């Protein structure tokens, strides 16, 4: 239990720093593609995490992110929204026999199809919320939509590739 708390805390801090110092500096096609990979830390929370705890963790992750990137509240708001969505998507995608309580949502455990579906829904909803909250208007709607879709694809790709690099199939209790 304690080990899990430490592992998740370290993961959140590490991913926020990666986001602020490396990934956030990517300006592909004049900023059209802008991945936010730090949400991987929230997508990695174990299945049995209670929904209220997911919300609290999301809140503080967003806060930490906001210290690096500008107006405090923007990422907090988007992350809290994501925190609401994650348990719902988990329920929605649950296999007939339910989740094994020790399982965590990774490609190795759940399979690539399941993972990409799960990550895509969560990422798309988070990016949509974030980008529209940032500009606060619906003009340039199609530009925004393309921006959101391409950024989400980039985020999901980075998360899946990252898992293949960091967690190899043998160490399955990561």
């Amino acid at each position, binding site marked *: 239990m304690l080990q899990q708390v430490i592992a998740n805390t370290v993961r959140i801090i590490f991913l926020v720093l990666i986001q602020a*110092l490396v990934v956030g500096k990517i300006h592909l096609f004049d900023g059209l593609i802008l991945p936010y990979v730090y949400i991987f830390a929230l997508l990695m929370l174990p299945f049995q995490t209670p929904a209220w705890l997911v919300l609290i963790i999301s809140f503080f992750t967003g806060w930490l992110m906001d210290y690096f990137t500008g107006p*405090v509240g923007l990422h907090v708001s988007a992350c809290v929204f994501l925190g609401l969505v994650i348990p719902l998507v988990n329920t929605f995608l649950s296999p007939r026999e339910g989740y094994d309580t020790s399982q965590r949502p990774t490609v190795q455990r759940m399979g690539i199809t399941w993972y990409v579906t799960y990550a895509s829904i969560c990422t798309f909803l988070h990016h949509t919320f974030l980008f529209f909250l940032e500009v606060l208007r619906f003009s340039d709607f199609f530009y925004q939509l393309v921006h959101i879709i391409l950024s989400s694809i980039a985020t999901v790709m980075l998360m899946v590739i990252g898992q293949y690099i960091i967690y190899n199939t043998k160490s399955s209790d990561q």
Partner: protein
Amino acid sequence: MKNIVELIKRFYVFLFYLVLQGIALAMLFNNTNYHKAEFIRTSTDWVGGIYSKRANFAQYIKLNDINDELALEIAELRNERPESFEVQRFGIDSLIDSTLNQRYYYRQAKVVNATANKEKNYVTLDRGWEGGIQPDMGVIANGGIVGVVRSVSQHYSIVMPVLHADFKASVKLKKSGYYGSLIWGGGNPGVADLIDIPVTAPVAVGDSIVTTGFSTYYPAGIMVGLVEEVQQANTDTYLLKVRLSVDFRKLSYVMVIQDIRKNELDSLNAQMEQMDAATGNR
């Protein structure tokens, strides 16, 4: 029975979500007014520390580019030096001592963080009030104007660049002298909009846009960019798309400008406003 328990649980989680979301939005909209954003003052020092470590590393990798830029900067500074002095000639016997007539003082600073892909972008510099930076000073880089200093801590300061939804500067067409306002509409970080140019003004693609010197932020004649596209905003005015001469995705060194006569000009303006108000009341 189990379903009802499940439903109540869901309901409380959603209620909890609404509370957290409310806090988040309150934080966001209280900070939108940048001048009141106190969090920047407290967070600049530790976040700035992390960013300056990153910038050190990144700058080591692009040292070659930076050297080129510095050489250009020095050359340009030599050309600009006489413009920092403003000698007012009243007659043959008036005192012409250039050391007493310096108008602008430049301080160099290193960029430790900059964004260009948001709606409201900011540039963080590694120089704060200890280094002589004060709010409302203008900032330029080798090619042209960058923005205005907004918030200052001991070692860092934050600049509101042209790429910010609230940025506005008074600029003019170099050739004809017609002036208007420079704003940024979001999207492409290389292009800003110039509004309020009357349709009677002669405008062509490729014309230079420079600062007017009306404000105390920048001296007159600092390059802003080139006209890229001419559009008609309404029957009276043009909307000009301006290709900015500063690439905000590659900023590394900037100059912060202090207008030595700022206080004098400001108090004169305030005096004038007071007099106007007094006449109005009578």
